[in-house]
């Protein structure tokens, strides 16, 4: 039995469970708007995701770091930075940057697309696995910011006139935007949508199972619920 079945809504801000009556209901504890599901979750997630996908192209094509020295100017994209690390012998670092900057954003976008399509098809396939995928996407997203910080520190530190200067390139802007947008996309996705087709499909049991609670008294103190 889900809370939505009884029109009970979890407050997204303070977590209080209360009865939803009509549109525009407010949480009795913190005053936040109450919704059964995040409003326009799928549309928002798609919007952020598509914006991130578009910006992913300049993020990889444009130079993220420009190194100037006596020998000339070198423009590094994310991938050439990884190749440089690999060829200079620090392969554990190359792997780390490769994972954080290339694998994670790409897998994150693929995973979110998969989740969105499966939710829109009202798929009942492996809900727990899909939820775990969502948790992974949420957890791992922030680590893509790694390359931005590396460039930021190098640009601040390597400012030795005539010997070597490092400046951040336009690719850094696009890449930072990709990271922020994919994080926003993951945040606006509502994982409860994964479970909804399952709940609709299960026939309502004649007698509630012992574990399922009575809808009559949703709180220890019934007065706590808004009328």
């Amino acid at each position, binding site marked *: 039995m889900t809370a939505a079945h009884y029109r009970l809504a*979890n407050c997204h801000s303070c977590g209080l469970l209360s009865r939803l009556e009509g549109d525009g209901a407010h949480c009795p504890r913190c005053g936040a708007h109450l919704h059964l599901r995040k409003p326009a979750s799928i549309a928002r997630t798609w919007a952020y995701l598509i914006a991130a996908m578009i910006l992913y192209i300049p993020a990889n094509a444009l130079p993220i770091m420009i190194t100037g020295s006596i020998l000339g100017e070198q423009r590094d994209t994310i991938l050439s930075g990884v190749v440089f690390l690999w060829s200079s012998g620090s392969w554990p670092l190359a792997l780390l940057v490769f994972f954080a900057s290339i694998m994670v954003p790409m897998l994150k976008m693929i995973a979110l697309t998969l989740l969105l399509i499966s939710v829109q098809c009202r798929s009942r396939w492996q809900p727990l696995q899909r939820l775990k995928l969502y948790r992974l996407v949420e957890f791992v997203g922030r680590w893509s910011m790694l390359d931005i910080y590396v460039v930021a520190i190098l640009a601040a*530190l390597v400012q030795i006139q005539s010997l*070597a200067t490092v400046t951040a390139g336009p690719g850094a802007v696009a890449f930072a*935007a990709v990271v922020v947008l994919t994080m926003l996309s993951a945040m606006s996705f509502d994982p409860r949508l994964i479970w909804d087709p399952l709940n609709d499909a299960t026939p309502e049991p004649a007698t509630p199972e012992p574990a399922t609670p009575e809808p009559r008294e949703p*709180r220890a103190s019934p007065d706590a619920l808004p009328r």
Partner: protein
Amino acid sequence: MSTIRYRFIAPAPMLAQRRPAAPPARGELVACHECDLLQRLQPFSGDSVQRCARCRALLLRYRVDGAQRSLAWALTGVMLFLITNAFPIVTLELQGIRNNSTLAGTVLSLWHEGLPIVAGVVAITTICVPGIMLAAMLYLLLPLNRGVLPAGSIGLLRALAAMRPWGMVEVFLLGVLVALVKLTHFASVIPGTALWSLGALVIALAAMSASFHADEVWRRIGIQPLKP
């Protein structure tokens, strides 16, 4: 739709005992925030961690001394945050020329290079969010440990939850380490005071967030919709 006004209910009996908020009532009804399964919390006394029966999402985590622990970590965090911002992170030495950079210096150099957006992202995720979070936690936890709920707790708790994913000090620390390794190929680098305090700050912030349970504070904010 009528607007509902709220007022705080001071948990008077608990104040005298100087204890954290009482554990939730037995058999309280909750909905899982990840799969929406309706279920009752198991009765418990003392520390407890409860997970959703269907998807294992965290439903409740309660520690008797949670507020004290997070206050201790927040105080530690404030000191480390100040040190991290005051001292240079790394010093670079190349052919007798020395150049060092602080956290703010990193942001400023990005700004001067004409990348205000990247500078803003770095400033928000490494300076603003951790700083504001620490200040908010102190404002909230100092009175709370004396049994008083500070004014504006509702807004503060909401802001804390919204800010949390955007504090990325740990990613920044890893970024500094990667940059250091990259630099060792052509110059000598000297780790600064702020690098060590940054490492400690990462631990303090993680421990502070882990021991702080907003749920416990929410329970102290009573529910009393006033009649319109």
